[in-house]
């Protein structure tokens, strides 16, 4: 089994450029990273460090200018990567004409399942995603937190080998965010899928991830790597522990935030 010996995702020497006002600019400059089997990896970096570009490349929406993306050890082209991972963005991107169940089912339908079969699967998961009783509501009737839970259900339901999360809590208020983070920790402890999550939130990265990659600002390059060995299962209470504080400090230092310089 290749997945036993190779990491789920391996990104090697990826370079990505884009054009702006006639000038070629680099978004990523020779990036390397891996996501192992059942590993939760966070990607932290300043705006413009090419984090979203990387997720676009890994999901198959974008072909890098050079470098390779390997899934389970096998080099892939962008079109081969489409349909392999589940990609969730900061905006929930729900279809306003579909109910919660219909929206949750659409990922399965996109992959070819019939609507009725897909909706049956989605309906079974409503309770686990805190959406019980809202299956027939339209996105316009739901709160921001509920909408994001629906987007999560849509992302997780097709059971892909890799989850790509691009600031999934970025647009939520602090309370809803804390609530959803706890819920995601619990869900992940059960599922143990391979996750690559982009975030701006230092606490979120330490709380959720096994490993944190820190990127430099444009062009994005790997600045440092922090292995978070907080015990699992994790809970929100850990935020106040000395160990958590140490990781948090280390991450802020790596990001070069003023007041957190190396002594």
């Amino acid at each position, binding site marked *: 089994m290749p997945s036993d010996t190779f990491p789920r995702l391996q990104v090697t020497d990826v370079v990505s450029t884009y054009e702006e006002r006639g000038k070629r600019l680099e978004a990523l400059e020779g990036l390397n990273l891996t996501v192992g089997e059942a590993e939760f990896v966070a990607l932290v970096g300043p705006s413009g460090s090419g984090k979203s570009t990387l997720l676009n490349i890994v999901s198959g*929406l974008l072909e890098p200018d050079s470098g390779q993306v390997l899934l389970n050890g096998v080099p892939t082209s962008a079109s081969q990567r*489409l349909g392999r991972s*589940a990609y969730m963005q900061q905006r929930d*991107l729900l279809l306003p004409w579909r109910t919660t169940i219909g929206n949750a089912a659409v990922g399965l339908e*996109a992959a070819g399942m019939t609507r009725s079969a897909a909706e049956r699967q989605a309906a079974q998961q409503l309770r686990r995603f805190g959406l019980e009783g809202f299956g027939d509501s339209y996105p316009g*009737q739901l709160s*921001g937190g509920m909408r994001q839970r629906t987007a999560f259900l849509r992302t997780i339901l097709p059971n892909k080998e890799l989850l790509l999360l691009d600031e999934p809590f970025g647009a939520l208020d602090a309370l809803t965010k804390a609530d959803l983070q706890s819920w995601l920790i619990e869900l992940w402890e059960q599922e143990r899928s391979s996750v690559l999550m982009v975030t701006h939130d230092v606490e979120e990265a330490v709380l959720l991830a096994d490993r944190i990659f820190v990127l430099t600002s444009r062009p994005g390059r790997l600045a440092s790597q922090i292995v978070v060995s907080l015990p699992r299962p994790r809970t929100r209470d850990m935020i106040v522990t000395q160990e958590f504080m140490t990781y948090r400090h280390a991450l802020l230092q790596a990001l070069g935030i003023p007041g957190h310089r190396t002594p």
Partner: protein
Amino acid sequence: MIGRDASSRTFGCLLPGLLIALFIGVWELGVRASGTPAWLLPTPGDVLRSLIEDRHVLLPNAFVTLSEVLLGFFLALSAGIGMGVAIYRSRTLDRALYPIIIASQTVPVPALAPLLLIWFGYGLLPKILITALVGFFPIVVNTVEGLRATDLDVVNVMRTFGATPTRVFRLVELPSSLPSVFAGAKISVAICVIGAVFGELVGAKAGLGYLMTRAIAQFETPRLVAAIILLSVMGTGLFALIGLVERIALPWRKYITIDRR
């Protein structure tokens, strides 16, 4: 608040009603006071009498016009949506056909009507074709623009789920274009009524347009105004009917303004 909503809706109907009542009142009194003869400008009372007394002439002819409008509209609707989808999905058609369709709008339909009459005679067909030609344009344009307004991020998410272009079209692009298609259909149905009457004015054996030309020739002005009123009722009714179909077909639209973060 529900209370405010209901009362504002009642008020919304009341206001135009009052305005029309006032207009009719001033019209009736003005014509009577000035002693204007009915063939020059009939009073609302004359028109109402014509609507009732001439109903055996008016209604069958209104039915002819209605069937022209409906057939022409459905022709415009199916051809318009079909061509809109084709233009959206094919770059070649977009380049080749879309400019021609837009340019075709500068051709006045009045100029085409006699030509269609020569080709297809005095029957129903030339009227249906004129109606369809007039009603076609807003549907094509709104279908194309509606499809183009699809959220590209949503399309990309579907692609990462492994959706083929056909599935992206069925799951995202087509449904997201529907509000715009409905808006086009509403504009279309209103001008389809004008198109059908125009076709009849040029040459016909039946229909409200035909009745109007006859009424003008015979100085039966109350009947002419009665026919105009029937036409406006028809146009308003069809417009409202499409609005009703839209509310039933797109029930989610009433929630769209509530939560947009």
